[in-house]
């Protein structure tokens, strides 16, 4: 436990110091990764702790992004403090509405139904004028963080955006930790472990799963909003099933059901993609092969490496 805390603290310090290196490209890249880490964390609540494997989680990511795209006025900057909660709320409500239907089904059916709903959202943005079709929306101005005439930070500044995202990543991480220690979180883990028994113990399982689905959707919306903020651009691909697949892969890479695994997975996914892209045009082939090998030889994901290392090399007793 304390070792884990130390690792988390060290990671945090490293992330906090990173922009001081002054490489703008990498500051932006890590910002992107931290946004994806928030996205992966939101999915971990569903997959890792509630036992609901959603294959349509990008829908809520995309809705959060489009919320900014649609709310941003054409000739002036949007206000962060209005649009961010609106985006989180919009994604949460969308997830709640979809959840009413999808959490009734299980297993493979749950996967397919979440995918179907995500495709519906995708086509709403792709084929209608609501979000300007497949071209998407370019925003002319970055949102501003103005509170009255006071401007605490500048979202046009790469470093400021970096720290803003880092703080939100930390907030989401701590929020999920708190939730998972709570009676509600324990009940979710019970549902993941043995839904049938939870029901016979008196838990209205449906409402727990619905709440989990809505919270995960809202947090994915936060990540989507931040992505739109960073790139100043949204298009339907944000909601595509590739995106849903990618975030699942991040979880699988990092390790499902450990929170920090989601963060590690986001970093690993982007790092592997960058490395393989530099090597070859067929980088996705290499990425796919790497993931297959990882799943076979490291079923607990990268987050389990430290524990494995201790067990096998140092011979530390395998405490319960």
């Amino acid at each position, binding site marked *: 436990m304390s070792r884990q805390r130390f690792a988390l603290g060290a990671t945090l310090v490293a992330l906090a110091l990173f922009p001081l290196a002054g490489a703008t490209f990498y500051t932006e890249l890590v910002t992107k990764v931290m946004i994806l880490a928030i996205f992966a964390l939101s999915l971990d609540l569903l997959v890792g702790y509630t036992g609901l494997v959603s294959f349509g989680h990008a829908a809520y990511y995309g809705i959060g992004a489009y919320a900014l795209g649609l709310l941003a006025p054409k000739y002036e900057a949007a206000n962060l403090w209005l649009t961010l909660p609106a985006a989180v709320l919009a994604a949460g409500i969308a997830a709640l509405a979809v959840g009413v239907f999808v959490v009734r089904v299980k297993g493979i059916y749950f996967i397919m139904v979440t995918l179907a709903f995500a495709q519906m959202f995708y086509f709403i943005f792709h084929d209608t004028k609501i979000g300007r079709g497949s071209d998407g929306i370019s925003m002319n101005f970055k949102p501003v963080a103005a509170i009255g005439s006071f401007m605490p930070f500048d979202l046009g500044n790469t470093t400021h955006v970096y720290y803003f995202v880092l703080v939100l990543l930390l907030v989401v991480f701590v929020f999920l930790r*708190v*939730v998972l*220690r*709570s*009676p*509600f*979180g*324990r*009940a979710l*883990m*019970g549902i993941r*472990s*043995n839904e*049938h*028994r*939870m*029901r*016979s*113990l*008196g*838990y*209205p*399982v449906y*409402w*727990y799963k619905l*709440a989990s689905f809505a919270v995960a959707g809202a947090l994915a919306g936060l990540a989507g909003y931040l992505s739109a903020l960073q790139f100043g651009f949204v298009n339907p691909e944000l909601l595509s099933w590739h995106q849903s697949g990618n975030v699942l892969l991040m979880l699988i890479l990092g390790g499902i059901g450990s929170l920090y695994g989601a963060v590690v997975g986001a970093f690993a996914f982007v790092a592997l993609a960058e490395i393989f892209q530099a090597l070859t045009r067929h980088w996705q082939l290499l990425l796919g092969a790497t993931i297959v090998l990882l799943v076979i030889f490291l079923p607990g994901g990268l987050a389990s490496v430290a524990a494995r290392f201790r067990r096998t090399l140092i011979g530390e007793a395998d405490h*319960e």
Partner: protein
Amino acid sequence: MSEAILATNGLTRLFGGLAAANDVSIELERGKLHAVLGPNGAGKTTLINLLSGDLAASAGSITYKGENITRHSADRRSRIGIGRSYQKTNIFPAFTAFENCRLAAQSRVPRAMRIFTVAGAYRPVCDVAERALEAAGLAGRRDRIASAMSHGEQRQLEIAMVLATAPEVLLLDEPLAGMGAEEAARMVELLKQLAPHHAILLVEHDMDAVFAVADVITVMVNGQVLESGPPAQIRASAAVRQAYLGTDTEAAST
């Protein structure tokens, strides 16, 4: 007249053309242990599943404290006081024995949906869980991971979890199955302690145990009630002997 806390009237469950439970009318009273006997396939587990809400009734009704609960969901029945255990151990294998019971006890408190509190720090729920472990004889196994416990201990945990939900009605599906002699004896003791304060429905194959603890015995065959009455009546019944007990003794004597 003693009043039934849980009663069924003409309860029937069809699987295709087969009536797994056929026109079953039984009553459970507080302070009484009602055992259900019958050969395999007699419909004993189906009866428990119908009472607990794991299965929906095809016909007939279930009344609990004067209220018709035939259409209530399983979780709702649990919350109003009908607890059950399973024949096939049905626990949270990755959790400790304590957490299995704590989760069970947590289902009784309205704060179960709360997000900003620490689950393990809420004393009342933890106390209930500790008492349930102790009652089931598992106090010394508190921090064992459930999947690492022996089969007998898992059976005890199964009971401890039901007790942690503080039910008024206990539906116990073969609690002694797979237990060693010592564990079984302790479970029989526990059943005797629980009987005065609960209405218990016990499905069990262990004849000695059943006749030692039951106030009422119902014998089921092919989904139907063959005979119901005090142990002495069942023991003396020619119909029961022929349909069920007799075949056993004949098989044993040949």
